[in-house]
């Protein structure tokens, strides 16, 4: 119970840390946080125009510089532009500076927003519209899970299955070890690029759009992120399990079993497999972290509006939603680690010497 509480607290602190880090952008100020420049008609009566916005005051009527409450420039800009006589409202650029005041103000503002149920906005630059992230959250998670979960499962099946087969048939083992050495050296983004290029050339050759390479409207690519998430951690799991199988096959009990007439397949299935389970459960956390990183890269390259894509894709400029999406992704990663810890506790028998 104590260990459970300790690791839960650690998980929560990690998510809080990521939340704080993801707001670091607000530490760097390059626009005045309490001023706006309104481009208005020369004959505008500022007092009349701003009568409905008592918090806004005119600093310089000639250049149209207005003072707004601290940190509320975006909210007041959208209100001011609706006033007759005001054509456009811009931020006032300043020399980039570090502002802890702005950082702490943003943190407090976001936290109070979360308590009200406001999780922030996402700006899609292609349609130039701000969307509440709460509206998109369910779709985002479903979109990402559609290829992440099957991809990760396939990675486990491939990793364990291929290492089992490689231990069973020597020739296959030699070939797979060579393929493994090649794949482990390939960066995940390059793998995605190769799959995308293959998809482009297949489409050109067949004159049909067989494999979608970017998200178009609601049509989301599946094969590219799925293959990336399956291959990258799958290669890691293959390497780990291959070593585990080789280690166990060199043990005395295996040699004894084979000497007694059991076939290699029987020994692997009935004796070795259960003993390498611990290695699998030890490697799974790292494989999952790799899978999540590959997912982020795949969503960035394929322009997918998934959980990772919203964080890293410049098309979806996170107006205020980046901390939430980062925290959600971190929570998912930590939840997986918790699941594997639980599985290790359930299925792995730890043996200690008696005192």
């Amino acid at each position, binding site marked *: 119970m104590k260990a459970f509480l300790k690791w839960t607290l*650690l*998980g929560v*602190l*990690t998510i809080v*840390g*990521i939340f704080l*880090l*993801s*707001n*670091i*952008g*607000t*530490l*760097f*100020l*390059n626009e005045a946080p309490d001023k706006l420049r309104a481009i208005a008609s020369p004959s505008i009566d500022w007092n009349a125009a701003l009568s409905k916005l008592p918090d806004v005051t005119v600093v310089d009527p000639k250049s149209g510089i207005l003072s707004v409450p601290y940190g509320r420039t975006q909210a007041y800009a959208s209100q001011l532009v609706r006033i007759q006589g005001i054509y456009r409202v811009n931020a006032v650029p300043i020399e*980039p500076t570090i502002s802890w005041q702005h950082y702490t103000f943003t943190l407090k503002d976001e936290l109070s927003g979360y308590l009200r149920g406001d999780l922030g906005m996402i700006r899609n630059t292609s349609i130039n519209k701000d969307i509440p992230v709460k509206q998109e959250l369910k779709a985002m998670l479903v979109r990402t899970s559609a290829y992440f979960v099957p991809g990760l499962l396939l990675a486990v099946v491939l990793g364990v299955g291929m290492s089992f087969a490689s231990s069973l048939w020597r020739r296959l083992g030699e070939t797979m070890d060579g393929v493994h*050495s*090649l794949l*482990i*050296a*390939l*960066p*995940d*983004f*390059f793998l995605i*690029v190769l799959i*995308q*290029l293959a998809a*482009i050339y297949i489409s050109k050759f067949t004159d049909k759009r067989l494999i979608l*390479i*970017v998200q178009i409207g609601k049509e989301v690519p599946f094969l590219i992120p799925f293959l990336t998430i399956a291959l990258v951690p799958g290669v890691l799991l293959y390497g780990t399990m291959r070593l585990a199988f080789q280690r166990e096959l060199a043990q005395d009990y295996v040699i004894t079993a084979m000497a007694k007439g059991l076939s290699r397949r029987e020994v692997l299935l009935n004796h070795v497999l259960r003993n390498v389970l611990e290695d699998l459960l030890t490697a799974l*956390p*790292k494989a999952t*972290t*790799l899978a*999540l*990183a590959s997912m*982020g*890269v795949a969503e*960035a*390259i394929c322009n997918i509006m998934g959980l990772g894509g919203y*964080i*890293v894709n*410049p098309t979806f400029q996170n107006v205020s939603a*980046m*901390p939430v999406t*980062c925290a959600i*992704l*971190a929570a998912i*990663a*930590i939840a997986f*680690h918790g699941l594997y810890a639980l599985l290790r506790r359930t299925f792995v028998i730890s043996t200690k010497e008696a005192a």
Partner: protein
Amino acid sequence: MKPRATKSYYASWAIIALLLLVAVFGGWLKPHGISQQDKINLIPTTVDGKLKYEKPPFPPGTKFIFGSDHRGFDMLSLLLNGFKYTMGTALALTLLRFCFALPWGLWSGVTGRTSGALRTLQWVISAVPAFLFLFPPLYGMYFGLRLNFGAKANPQHLLTFTVLYFAMIAFLGIFPLAYQIAQRAKYYNEKLYVEASRLMGGGVLHTMRRHLMPGMRLELMFLFLTEFVQVLFLIGQLAVFHICIGGSETLEWDLFVDYFIPITTTGEWTALIAYGSTYIRLYPWIIISSGTCFAAVILALQFWIAQLKKRYGGTATVR
């Protein structure tokens, strides 16, 4: 007794030597220039007897083997020139990580202190993808300091960003590395000869310097090389998210209104990957050439590490 050197072993050394030569002399070896006066706007070509003008980026051909970028700069020349910056960045990051992780790991392994903290911090860093720690603050900093203005950005801000980029990437890797070193140091620390040295009055520093370091030297070397490859992977991943360092310029592309293309001025490889990933459908040769060279270097390093491990076994041999 170490096994005899094989042809593969010598081949791996030859490849590494070649890479070092390219890193040092790449700037002189490049076939075309990459300065302002080398920019190409249009190339006249004759198609079916008619004179036509081609605008860059040019596809791979006889003049530009790997094609060109939007400025008409030869991709091969950019890659040759930028190789040293990429390798230098990765090497600096790896060295920075080792500077902190090695003494901490050794000390923790010998004394047993801070092992809990190391284990916890190692778990925190490994539980979550690295880009979650690095991308949001670096992205925010990049736009906050107006570095997206390319050559017009304030050089002091660019320096601040570069320093923080190095600091953050190095910092993130210290804990898992220190934890690994601590685990190995603990293993060697429990050996009888180390225990004997302690009983004879050997202190922590003496144990670290005289017993652990010589015993772990091969493992540390392999760890360094593996860490170097991991750093290359990480900076490549950040490049796909358009976070990279080095000089860049912003090209105004006249085919579209208000369309600017940020491109590296030095040919730094991660910046080329960032630039190429945006145009994978229109100009695939940019990402293919930079990505292939990046992957080839990592393959060469992995091959070299594998050959070294085969020859030297990964642990110090008793003479």
